[in-house]
């Protein structure tokens, strides 16, 4: 039992190949976390609820993608169905259930989400079975890995990072520049006024929830080839993405990106230096941020 292995960490930091390998693995953890966390932060920013069942959307995204891939053999369709399926699920979930607990106390919102965490996990267990599943790497990416400065980088990782960055850019620009983005930001500030000006705020709430669910589903679909699928897989992702939003600041997209990358790097390098304390390192970082900046690194006004 080695609790702290600083030699391993130091020797990795000294070697370019190890540095590249660990950084890319940190980046993909971070990018997946970002996609989940940004949905969480977006939903919180506009709807003022924390979607405690957000991890379930990540899980459904992965399972939808696996099924679509097994049926069609097309990886693009797999990703698409993961994202689209969870978007529809998010819309239904918000309109039928969550919309009933807005403005009620946090306890009720948490309870409704808690109920759905239980239900969704069991639904997955019913449909796909309780055992571990894996989707397998699509044929297009079964190619020899790239070597950058001696470090191993599978090409799929590059795709994953690219898609996540593209999603971040589209989301950030869309919210800042587009008309819909402006309406969403206005609804976050003052839903009553937006509604009085003739916009259907229910539609906006449903849309934002669907968008958040879609991003988590996209993360799940992207993760499906490189992670094993199991009922309940969403929960640890939910906790980590919540830590990300606490670090970055609730409601901030840039905060979610920076927070997710930091957590990803902490996880990948921490597993070398503190193999038994990797998770603890993450929490320690969260505590430091919470104590020094309770609103998070970028938390000020809601997006």
């Amino acid at each position: 039992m080695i609790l702290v292995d600083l030699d391993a960490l130091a020797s990795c930091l000294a070697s370019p190949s190890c540095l590249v390998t660990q950084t890319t693995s940190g980046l993909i953890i971070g990018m997946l976390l970002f996609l989940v966390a940004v949905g969480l932060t977006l939903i919180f920013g506009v709807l003022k609820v924390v979607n405690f069942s957000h991890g379930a959307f990540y899980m459904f995204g992965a399972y939808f993608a696996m099924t679509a891939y097994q049926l069609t053999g097309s990886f693009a369709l797999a990703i698409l169905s993961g994202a689209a399926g969870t978007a529809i699920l998010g819309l239904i979930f918000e309109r039928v259930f969550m919309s009933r607990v807005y403005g009620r106390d946090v306890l009720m919102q948490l309870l409704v989400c808690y109920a759905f965490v239980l239900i969704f996990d069991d639904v997955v267990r019913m449909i796909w079975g309780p055992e571990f599943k894996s989707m397998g790497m699509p044929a297009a990416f079964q190619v020899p890995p790239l070597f950058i400065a001696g470090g191993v980088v599978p090409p799929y990782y590059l795709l994953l990072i690219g898609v996540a960055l593209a999603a971040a850019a589209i989301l950030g620009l869309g919210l800042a520049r587009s008309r819909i983005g402006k309406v969403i930001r206005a609804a976050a500030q003052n839903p009553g006024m937006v509604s009085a000006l003739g916009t259907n705020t229910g539609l906006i709430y449903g849309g934002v929830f669907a968008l958040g669910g879609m991003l988590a589903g996209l993360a799940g679909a992207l993760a499906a080839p490189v992670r094993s699928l199991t009922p309940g897989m969403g929960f640890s992702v939910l906790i980590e993405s919540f830590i990300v939003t606490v670090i970055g600041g609730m409601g901030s997209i840039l905060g979610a990106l920076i927070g997710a990358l930091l957590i990803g790097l902490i996880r990948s390098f921490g597993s070398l230096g503190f193999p038994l304390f990797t998770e603890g390192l993450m929490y320690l970082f969260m505590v430091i941020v919470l104590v020094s900046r309770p609103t998070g690194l970028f938390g000020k006004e809601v997006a």
Partner: protein
Amino acid sequence: MTELQAGQSAQPLEVPRIDARPQRYRDVLIALVAFVLLALLPMLFGSKQLLDFVIRCAAYGLFATSLNLLVGYTGLISFGHGMFFGLGAYGFGLMMQKTGVPIPVAFVATLAMTLVVAVVIGAICVRLKEIYFAFVTLAFQMLIHSTILSWQSLTGGDQGLRGGIPRPSFLGIDLSNHLHLYITSCALLVIGLFLMRQIAQSPFGYTLRMIRDNATRASFIGIDVWRAKLVIFVLAALFAATGGMIMALFVSGAYPEFAYWTISGEGIFINMLGGVTTFLGPMVGTVLLLILNDTVTRLTEYHGIVLGVVILFFAIGLRKGLMDFVVEWFAQRRGEERG
């Protein structure tokens, strides 16, 4: 100076002093009667299953009622309260397995350890706003759970603490005897509930209610909100740990599930089920949830779905706990009698 003078010249306010003693005597009486009834139970019904059920009710009931001190009385929605339940179970089990001290010593030592952990975690958490508080406590729960899983040499990892917990007899009380264990659990439950009731009815308890209703006003009149919240967080943790210790004694071991977040979720649901507006609501909720759990697990392996639907029914449909209905019904009847 002027303020001082104003204070001197003002008439002392006539505050009716409420004597808390009759209420306390009543609580003592209720506690004694409850204990005697519970102690007589094995003579009336010999079924081991029933006694097991009561022991589990004692463990979960202490946990859920202590959570209500946070949720119902102080407005602190902790989603990680189960960590102290797990901590109690593991702390006690390890203490008994590794050191072989008498049971009361291990009991007190576990409470001391819980106190230290609760002070550290509470100091970080209690100043956070409600949703942050809920999730950061949840995050700490997951930290403790993952520590238990990864620290295999000490905790046995996902297999749990196995090999049984030694239960040497102390002053003639032999906890490996099922009846002795039952009586001890009942005693701990009744004493725990009595103490929590005294906390809830004390001036400090009313301070907590004020913090729940309006923390800003409370701090304006000179209450140290942060400290009051921390104190109740730590006290609640101690009672939750006691529940965990009963559980560890009952199963003669400790399992990672005791520290998993679902325990906290169930605690919150128990409070919702029974109602947070009455002191005994969580106790009623505990009995209901355990019956529900036992029935559902016997009928289907997908008990998450059933439980989830029941939660939705309560949270969206009824919007109240069972005891809330009972209290309302009584109030209504009393109103009718008067009118």
